[in-house]
């Protein structure tokens, strides 16, 4: 039945509510100087947004993966090379950075929860993460230099092409994550950091970790 019958207005207070909506961030301005724990009524967009962004990033790497599989499958010019050993050290560094970020995230959470006395400097572990992150990028660069020294350039062989493309794409994303970490530190310094920002940043960072392990497995199997 498409026709609707109208009846007098119902004043149901439970249906009216406040003037503000479900949305996250607009309700979440922090206090003057002190950081407050802000519990959200609805998930703040940053925590949804980060999953959406990660989905897009996964899609791009999936596309590159299938390109690699197709390119390797249909050709006779694919040459295997051994991955530089330093990549495994880099992996350890990146995993360590994830651990330190998780420590930092919990400390900041406690810190934001108002128990300031217990945690003196919540940003210390963030600096550790930042350092490890840069160490990883530097390590990747060293791996590139090692391949260069072996005469393996971007265009040398499809295997090296894919190696450079995948590591560069991942490295750029890691650099983006480092930018995010620096922003978190900056916001923390100004006492305007929000939980959702920190959580989203750490999710992104952990994802870079998982993505790298995936890429390493892919490269070691396929190259």
């Amino acid at each position: 039945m498409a026709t609707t019958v109208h009846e007098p207005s119902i004043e149901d207070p439970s249906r009216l509510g406040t003037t503000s909506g479900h949305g996250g961030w607009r309700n979440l301005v922090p206090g003057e100087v002190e950081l407050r724990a802000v519990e959200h009524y609805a998930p703040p967009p940053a925590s949804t947004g980060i999953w959406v962004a990660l989905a897009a990033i996964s899609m791009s790497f999936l596309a590159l993966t299938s390109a690699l599989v197709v390119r390797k499958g249909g050709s006779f010019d694919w040459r295997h090379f051994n991955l530089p050993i330093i990549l495994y050290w880099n992996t350890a560094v990146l995993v360590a950075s994830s651990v330190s970020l998780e420590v930092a995230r919990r400390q900041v959470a406690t810190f934001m929860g108002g128990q300031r006395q217990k945690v003196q400097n919540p940003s210390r572990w963030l600096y550790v993460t930042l350092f490890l992150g840069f160490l990883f990028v530097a390590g990747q660069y060293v791996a590139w230099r090692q391949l260069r020294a072996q005469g393996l350039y971007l265009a040398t062989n499809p295997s090296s092409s894919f190696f450079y493309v995948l590591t560069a794409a991942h490295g750029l994303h890691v650099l983006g994550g480092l930018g995010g970490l620096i922003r978190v530190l900056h916001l923390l310094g100004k006492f305007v950091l929000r939980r959702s920002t920190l959580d989203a940043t750490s999710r992104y960072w952990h994802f870079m970790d998982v993505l790298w392990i995936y890429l390493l497995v892919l490269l070691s199997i396929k190259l």
Partner: protein
Amino acid sequence: MAKIFAITLILIAIGSAIPILRHTWWISEDISAHGRPIDEQMSETMAEAGISFLASQILLAIFVWKYSQPRPGERIRSFPGGATGLVIAAFLLVGTEVLALGVFGAKAWADIYLTPPSPNAMPIQVQAGQFAFYFRYPGPDGIFGPIHPEQVSEANQNFFGLDTTHDAASKDDIVTAEMAIPVNREIHLLMHAKDVGHSFYVPELRVHQDFVPGLDLSVHFTATKLGKYEIVCTQLCGLGHYNMKAYLTVMSPEDFDAWLKKEAALQ
């Protein structure tokens, strides 16, 4: 205004259908042994698509005509059966329609593409390059000499990169700029792209296949009618794309042998 819309729409729908019904512009006459299922599939699809087209456009016109001038106080009504009815109708009607088209279409396709050429099919190689086709017949030995890409040269008229001084098999290969085939004989066409993507399209022969650089494909067909037809390129290959064509002549076996001899003498 609604009535004008309805009338215009019906006129457009019927006007669009007339050239189709009268076959003013229509698919070319089939000269292949395998084309019949394709043509039948074409007529079948045209009938179903045409009915769907006319029915929905006319229905749209009628509804617009009818429901654009409601009497005051008139209540809106729902389509009998509502959304559920329409969804079921769509699944039943269109679902079976497309399933039938899909199954018969797949069969027509499989008959052509999933059956291997017969062993005594005549091999001919075609090479597509910017912006010409060249054809190669293996000669009396029945073997195509190997292609040496580094020797390919338009300037020296060595279109296939053959090394006739070293490769015995290349010595009797016959390279032509036009294609001739004997009627009622199966042809196994080996396709090779010299530079970029091209396509081999002979509408009358119901053959259409892209040349894929780096991947030599083949098609097979039998022409059943004498005549001269055009082979055109349908894959954008550069500035001369529009002009990339060759002639295909379907000859009687005797004429074909004579033609091949003449071409062999010209090598």
